[in-house]
């Protein structure tokens, strides 16, 4: 495993723009965390990754989704979908107003991704499926001799599912170096710390043992993302794995790294307070119980 350096960091202006988009994505996530709620904590951890991937890395024109040469992003940890929708809305793929249809029967903006929303490649919600689906897409691309990249974003708790590792064995056997697994390593699974339940560390050697080339980065540092994603594939003939260390609830200190702030259904007042906290104002006073099973 190697560690990414910030040598090819975006320019200060580009960095500021990515940060500004990510802030607005976090606002969307918080606004979806009421009236039924959403997976707030898990969405905040990967917001920066989605913003970077869609704004800087992926070669996808949302007006040409039928382009066979475009890249793919598959969201395997489907409960993070507010971060994806927030990103797609900010980048103009879907109208921002559509987010207000959250959980309504007049639309398909619910707790997991689905292909009624343009840009969503595949539905998810059951963990451990999209490494295999991504493998199939990557295999077709290789069969065609094309150069599109397939990025699959997984959770860290999701790595408990054996199907993830089956897919890696096969991807490695077929030398699919166009497949990139990005692990949103936020150190929690639902209402438990991963290392207190089913320890995942040392994580990088596990992927390496399955035939992957691994880089570990700070998943909130756009410079480290640029350094890692700009030199894919890490090794010819091997699937790439980027372990992105993140903080669940990132950006809102009162819900950061807390076991009970995974799925959140806050009151409207709490959401307003959390938005103020996101912008560096007073810390929110939260009373909603959010320890739940979804």
């Amino acid at each position, binding site marked *: 495993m190697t560690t990414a350096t910030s040598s090819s960091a975006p320019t200060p202006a580009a960095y500021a723009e990515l940060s500004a988009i990510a802030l607005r994505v976090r606002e969307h996530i918080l606004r979806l965390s009421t009236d*039924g709620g959403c997976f707030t904590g898990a969405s905040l951890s990967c917001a920066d990754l989605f913003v970077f991937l869609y704004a800087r890395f992926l070669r996808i024109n949302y007006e040409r989704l039928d382009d066979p040469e475009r890249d793919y992003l598959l969201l395997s940890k489907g409960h993070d979908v507010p971060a994806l929708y927030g990103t797609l809305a900010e980048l103009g793929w879907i109208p921002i107003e559509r987010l207000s249809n959250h959980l309504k029967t007049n639309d398909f903006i619910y707790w997991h991704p689905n292909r009624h929303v343009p840009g969503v490649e595949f539905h998810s*919600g059951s963990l451990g499926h999209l490494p295999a689906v991504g493998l199939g897409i990557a295999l077709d691309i290789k069969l065609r001799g094309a150069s599109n990249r397939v990025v699959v974003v997984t959770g860290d*708790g999701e790595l408990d599912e054996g199907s993830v590792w089956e897919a890696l064995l096969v991807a490695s056997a077929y030398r699919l170096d166009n497949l990139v697994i990005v692990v949103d390593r936020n150190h929690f*699974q639902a209402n438990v710390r991963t290392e207190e339940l089913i320890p995942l560390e040392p994580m990088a050697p596990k992927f390496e043992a399955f035939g992957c080339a691994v880089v570990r980065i700070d998943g909130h540092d756009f410079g480290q993302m640029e350094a890692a994603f700009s030199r894919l594939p890490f090794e010819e003939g091997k699937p790439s794995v980027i372990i992105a260390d993140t903080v669940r609830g990132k950006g809102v200190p009162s819900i950061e790294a807390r076991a009970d702030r995974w799925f959140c259904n806050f009151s409207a007042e709490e959401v307003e307070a959390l938005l103020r906290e996101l912008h560096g104002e007073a810390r929110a006073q939260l009373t909603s119980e959010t320890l739940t*099973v979804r």
Partner: protein
Amino acid sequence: MNYQELIRQTALRDERVVVMTAENRAVLRELPPVLGPRFVDVGIAEQTMIGAAAGLALRGRIPICHALAPFLIYRAYEFVRTDVGIAHLPVKLSSWIAGFLSEANGPTHQAIEDVALMRAIPGMTVFCPADEADMLAMLPAIWASPDPAYVRLIVRKTDYPHAPFEIGRAEIVSEGSDVTLLVYGLLFEEARQTARLLEQQGWSVGLINMRSLKPVDEEAILRAARTSRRLVTIEDHLLTGGLYSIVAETLLKHRQTADVLPLALQERWFRPALLADVLAFEGFTAERMAQRIVALPAE
């Protein structure tokens, strides 16, 4: 008393009981310190949970396996069928948010084929309580049985005073000559309201809380078919393999026939939303069900 407390008391009384989950522990949150090593959370690995439950059961344990319905039984289906089913081990599957209870999660989380798949396994028993009190009345007998069992959990409350439970027996809430509603699980309360609406229009309405879908109370179905002009099956399940199928199989087995209206999901997943909106969108509110029954053509 609630689900967690019932498990706690059962496990403390019987050391064979082991509680397992695939990291769906919010409703079991107080059990780990009480049960110590008899609380086993395998992480997000449902197949391994079921395989391990079979191993524990081979050694004389009674595993209660608690997980979200779709992952408990669809992800692990072959393990349930092959490790629990073929060996006929007393593994107790506790299925969380089955049917409409998955609300806005979407099709990945919609266990609306669970009754069909579970009852297809030889020796597997299948239970769907109507509300929390019904579930608490049913679980002790289910857990005490030597058979593998699948239970759709429900923690919603109603004010219906349920009768004691017996495996294989339905609960006859009322009998009626115009129509009998056969229902299980979450939709029991809506069906009760449907019955009231129909009675207000002068109908004579029967209502049966099925409770035990396998073994099923054949006599309750046959009697309703004999005494009621029409049957209505109500379920948050696909038409294929659920209560409508059970009623059809029962009637044919006994060479009876009946006029049966199925209220079920037909060849589609339901629209994800909060529960009240799902019921309205899919036509399962008491008002909509009453309208659909009243709209039936006269014989």
